[in-house]
Each structure stands twice: as C-alpha cells, then as structure tokens.
C-alpha cells in the first residue's frame, strides 16, 4: 500500500512541477523586471515561450550528431526524475528507487553531462567553452552537494532525503543547530551554481564571453531548446523545493491522505514561489563574479560543508 501511495505522490510531484517550474521562472523574471523599473512580461511568459518553441521546426547544424536531439531529452528526463524522487509534496520513499543522496546527485549529474555534450556537439567555439566551464563548475559543486547533505544526514542517521526531511519535521531544533545552518549555506551556494544563477552565471546575458549555461544552448533550436529550457527550469524548481523543505519542513505530507496531498502541494508551491522572489531580489544586488573567482566561492561553500560534517561529530 505504501508503495502505491509513494508512486502516486511521485506522479503528483511530476505534474505539479511541470506546471510550477515555468511559473517560478515567470515570477523570478517579473520581480526582477519590476525592480528594474520595467513593466515585465507577466508570470505566464515562460509558458508561452515553451509552447512557441514546440511548434517551430528545429534547425540543426550540418556537423551535429544525434546528441543534439538526444541530449535535451536526457536533461529533461533527469530533471523530471529529480522532481519525482525528491521529497517535495510528500516524504514517502519509492520502494525500488530511494531518494537517497547518491541517487539524487547521480541523476543530476546525468543531466549535467548531457547538457555539456549538447554544447560540444555542434563544434562551435562558444559551445565548447560553455561546456568546459560548466564541467569545471560541476566538478566543484558535486562534492559540496554530497558533503552538505551528508552533514544533514548525520542527525537523521540515514542518507535518504525524505527521512532527513521527516526528522527535521519531528525535531525542529535540528534545523537551527550550527551543523544544519553551515550545511544549508553550503547547499544554497552549491544549488545557485548548479542551476546557473548569479553570481556564478548570468541567466539573462547576451554576451557570449560571460555565458555558462547560455553558451551551451546557443546551437539548440525549436523543441531541442524547449526541452533544454524546461529541463533547467525543472531542476531549479526541484532544488529550490528541496532547499525550502529542508529549511521549513512544515506542510510536507508524511502519511498518505487526500487532504495531506492538497496541503503538501499548496505549501510547496508557496514555499518555492517565496524562495523564487527572495532569489530574484537577491540577484538584483549581485553582479556576476569573474570566472576565476567562481572556484573561490565554491571552495568556500565546500569548506562550509566540511565544517558542518566536522561539527556534526564534535557538537552533536
């Protein structure tokens, strides 16, 4: 019975996040536009963008291979898996694929590699440059992600993310412990880097030399681009959802009930949109860091994660 409920929750999360991710991007862009004195294109604009991209006929470079068509789908699938596996609406772990820390990071890495291969595929200078930068950032981010979540897993005694969230729900004192605070800051920086937000990457840049994510998708068009965009948005939404559920676990469904599902969906939506607004306001005050300063920032977040792990053995 729990298995069926867990699968149902995973499907609910999938549907909710496919709907929510473009909305989140719309809210982020709208808040930013308002702060810049613009009117903004409305919170439904990302939906219109994706719908439009799907009806266009993709143009693929003559030198490109099947990777340009398969890569975007791989990224989308990895992001969808992330949305299904993470404890977002409910914390019921799937029977066969647990939402284990290592499973999550590996699933995310599949998308990262697919995106890097898409960047390399057409053989353009900017694509290759973007891929190399992307992999550099990924190599620095993944250990931080692993270590930060590992630090969070010590008080819970398990590396399953849904059980970590449940522990924090039962024992809220864990949330404001020094271990948790250090790990959360490290995790937040790592997530910003992983999802190509400021100060690591500028999501609204037109200058090829400053691009990370944008440089890799320069050659994609039509539905390839739609999958890439939707995949990246889903990843951002899922990771922000994880972060918000770790900071404020209340509202997450722990036992199957219809009311619980509705409450879980409502709270996760509110939490993600609020975090999106905070992210957007924060980004207005940030400039993109020089590429050579990015490893320093990420090394700093790794140091915080390491401190969190050390502290969890000394303090706890």
């Amino acid at each position, binding site marked *: 019975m729990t298995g069926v409920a867990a699968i149902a929750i995973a499907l609910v999360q999938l549907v909710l996040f496919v709907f929510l991710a473009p909305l989140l991007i719309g809210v982020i862009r709208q808040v930013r536009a308002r702060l810049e004195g613009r009117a903004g294109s409305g919170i439904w604009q990302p939906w219109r963008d994706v719908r439009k991209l799907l009806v*266009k006929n993709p143009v693929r470079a003559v030198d490109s291979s099947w990777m340009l068509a398969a890569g975007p789908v791989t990224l989308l699938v990895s992001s969808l898996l992330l949305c299904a596996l993470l404890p977002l609406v409910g914390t019921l772990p799937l029977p066969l694929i647990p939402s284990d820390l290592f499973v999550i990071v590996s699933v995310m890495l599949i998308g990262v590699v697919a995106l890097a291969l898409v960047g390399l595929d057409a053989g353009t200078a900017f694509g290759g440059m973007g891929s190399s930068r992307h992999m550099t950032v990924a190599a620095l981010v993944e250990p931080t992600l692993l270590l930060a979540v590992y630090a969070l897993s010590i008080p819970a005694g398990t590396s399953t993310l849904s059980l970590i969230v449940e522990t924090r729900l039962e024992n809220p004192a864990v949330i404001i412990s020094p271990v948790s605070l250090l790990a959360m800051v490290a995790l937040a920086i790592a997530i910003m880097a992983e999802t190509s937000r400021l100060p690591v990457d500028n999501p609204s840049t*037109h200058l090829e030399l400053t691009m990370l994510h944008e440089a890799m998708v320069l050659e994609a068009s039509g539905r390839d681009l739609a999958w890439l965009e939707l995949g990246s948005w889903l990843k951002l939404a899922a990771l922000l959802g994880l972060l918000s559920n770790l900071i404020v676990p209340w509202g997450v469904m722990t036992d199957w009930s219809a009311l619980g599902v509705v409450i879980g969906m409502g709270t996760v939506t509110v939490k993600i949109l609020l975090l999106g607004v905070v992210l957007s306001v924060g980004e207005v005050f940030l400039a993109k860091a020089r590429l050579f300063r990015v490893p320093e920032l990420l090394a700093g977040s790794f140091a915080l994660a390491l401190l969190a792990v050390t502290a969890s053995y000394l303090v706890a």
Partner: protein
Amino acid sequence: MSVTRLTKLIRTSGRIAETAPPAPALHTGAEVFGGSVQVRFINGGSCNDCAMEVQSAFGPVYDVERYGIRLVASPRHADVLVITGAVTRNLIEPLLRTVDATPTPRFVIAVGDCAITGGVFAEGYGVAGPVSDFVHVDLAVPGNPPEPAVIVEALRRMTGR
C-alpha cells in the same frame, strides 16, 4: 554601488516604463508565436543610428519586453530578425547564413530607410543594396532613424499583445 544606495534608487525611481499604447493588429502568420517572440538583431552595415533606436526600444522606458519580446544571442533561438542598414558587400554572406540558421516560421523586419531603400548610402562603393535584394522582408519600418515607439509597434504586431 552599495546595497543601501541601490535600494534607495529602486525606491525613488519606481516604474520607469511608460504606459502601453493600445495593441496594433497582429501581422498575418504571426499567430503561431502565441505572444512570445525572440528577436535576433542584425546590423547589415548601418551607421548605428537605427541600432541605437532598437536598443532604446528594449530599454526600460519603452520596455518592449512586456509584450513578450526578448532579444536573444543566437539566430537559432530567434523568431524575428531585425535588420538595420543597407547591406554592405562584406555582410551579404553573414546575413544569408544568419537567415538560414533561423528556424521557421520566421519573420524579417527591416528597420530604417537604409535597410528599405539603401538611403543616403545607396550609391556607396561598399554597399551591395537594400535588405530586400537578399532576403524576403515581411515588415518594413521607415524612418531615418525610426523612433523607438514605431519600432515597438512593429514588434508588437508580431506578438499581438
């Protein structure tokens, strides 16, 4: 700029965008875009007058982004190509290749008298001809240079918003 100064600037400047004029009629065939248009800007050899007007159309005052129109960095992402200036000999090839790299359905807007007729540069030794000699032009925005409001109106005909 410090955080306090920036906060003050945001608070005092408020909304810079001017109120939107009524939406113009949708251009035939542009309904496939459904209110979302990505624009790639091409300078075919203009004196940058029209380029600056296009730039201010995308600025916060005219704020063409509120109608769902965005500038993009690659022709592969674009639906509409905005071309300024008479086409010079060196730019024939890049222009044709950019148009080929843009996925269909696509529209081409020629902005400024030079792009439409060659303007004052028509007889120049480096000038090959107006844009319509090389690619199919869907919409022409006359002016020397055209005002940003006119460019905004032409772009709005693509989204219908």
